[in-house]
């Protein structure tokens, strides 16, 4: 219990970029365990508040299935419907298939509240935060060392766990329809910068590079994957057309 309270206190100070908090985490007996405890606790707490907020959001909007059925009923009354039907008798079946598929995808794409998904967040949110922390921590450690940093891997992971502190702002999702935008991500990156700068004793410029290079690497991989994916899709479309 003391560990959790201690981690919370460090997380709170880290939120306001207090270098002592990062230094305290670096020099603690078990920075990785302490960091992991903080991440799991924060993850579970924000997932619970998100579940409450999502339930309230769901209760505030009309039933999407009813909307879907009402719109479909009126589409059948549109003046163009009969004309299309005369020219393509199998159109209703194809249309209904795509209509249903659209309603499966678009509400999800535009952030319609999904209570089931929010409930799974109780497990997936801390898990996701921990995986992101490990991958980013490893890459940031490698880049920081390459740039002349002095901290070891467990110290790096410890200070970077404090970058999860801004996630507590997600408690505001307890209020339905509140959107934090880029705030949590930007604040988290700034915490990571202060953490890497403090733990590795880097100059500001090197600390900026150590913070951003893992993201740039991820971006390059994403762009390459997108190019490869679109090239395969393009080839498939061309092949299909010819």
């Amino acid at each position: 219990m003391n560990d959790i309270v201690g981690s919370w206190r460090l997380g709170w100070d880290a939120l306001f970029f207090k270098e002592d908090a990062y230094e305290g985490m670096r020099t603690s007996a078990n920075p990785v365990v302490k960091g992991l405890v903080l991440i799991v606790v924060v993850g579970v707490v924000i997932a619970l508040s998100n579940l409450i907020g999502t339930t309230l959001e769901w209760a505030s909007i009309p039933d999407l299935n009813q909307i879907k059925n009402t719109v479909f009923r009126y589409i059948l009354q549109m003046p163009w419907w009969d004309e299309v039907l005369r020219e393509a008798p199998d159109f209703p079946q194809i249309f209904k298939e795509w209509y249903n598929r659209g309603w499966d995808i678009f509400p999800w794409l535009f952030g319609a509240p999904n209570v089931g998904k929010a409930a799974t967040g109780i497990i997936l949110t801390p898990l996701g935060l921990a995986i992101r922390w490990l991958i980013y921590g490893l890459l940031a450690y490698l880049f920081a060392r390459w740039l002349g940093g002095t901290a070891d891997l467990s110290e790096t992971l410890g200070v970077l766990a404090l970058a999860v502190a801004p996630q507590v702002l997600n408690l505001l999702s307890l209020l339905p329809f509140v959107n934090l935008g880029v705030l949590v991500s930007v604040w988290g990156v700034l915490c990571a910068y202060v953490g890497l700068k403090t733990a590795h004793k880097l100059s500001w410029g090197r600390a900026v590079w150590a913070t951003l290079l893992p993201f740039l690497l991820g971006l390059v991989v994403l762009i390459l994957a997108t190019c490869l994916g679109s090239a395969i899709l393009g080839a498939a479309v061309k092949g299909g057309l010819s």
Partner: protein
Amino acid sequence: MSGLVNTLFRTVILDNAAYEEWRERPNLFLRGIVLILVVSLVAGLVTFAVDLVNRLKPVDLDRIEEQIDESFEQQFKWNPAWQDMEPEAQEMMDKTMDVIVPMVADLAEIQAPLPHSVGGLFGGIGSWLSRALSAVGGWMFYGALVLIVANLLGGSARLPDFLGMVSLYVIPGLLGLLGPVPCLGSLLGLIGLVWGIVVYVKAVSVSTGLDSGKAVLAVFAPFIALSLLAVLLAILGITWLIIVL
């Protein structure tokens, strides 16, 4: 409290001593967050009230029909494609509208589990808070970029102190309180924006020790760099699509 308000007011009129006073206050970063949140929430009060009223009032079908008619009239007046429309197509469009209006009426009748007023209140408060939180996110993101440029230009400041100093830029944004007033609102918004940039430059100069010219460069360089990056990415994306397809 009155001392704080006085200091903040004097920063708006670019009083050097006020900037120094603000810089000397403890927990500058936390003060910056509170300042941005409070000013954004106050500036968004009228917009929040208008939005809330719109959310709470029942759907006015006559008004919707009027708006559709007005937009059609505008299209027929200004859009050449609509002016050359075949009479059959126009008739079909009119008939489609005859279906859409009752559809909107039926959709408005679908009830949510919570009463309409509670849902509307949640929605209104949610958007109001979201706008203020976005302002905090934007302040941190842009502030970090400006600090990088300021450091490259020879200035120096600690991240939390710097962010706390530049948070002063938000005060002229209070003019946004009158944003929804027709004509005058936009003008006051523009004045608030320009004034905010001037305060930002002054705050950068005071907190990093840069002269005014370099402070202006530090403030505008990230905007120019981000704009160029967006254009470059758009060109690359379009080029790639042309090559692939």
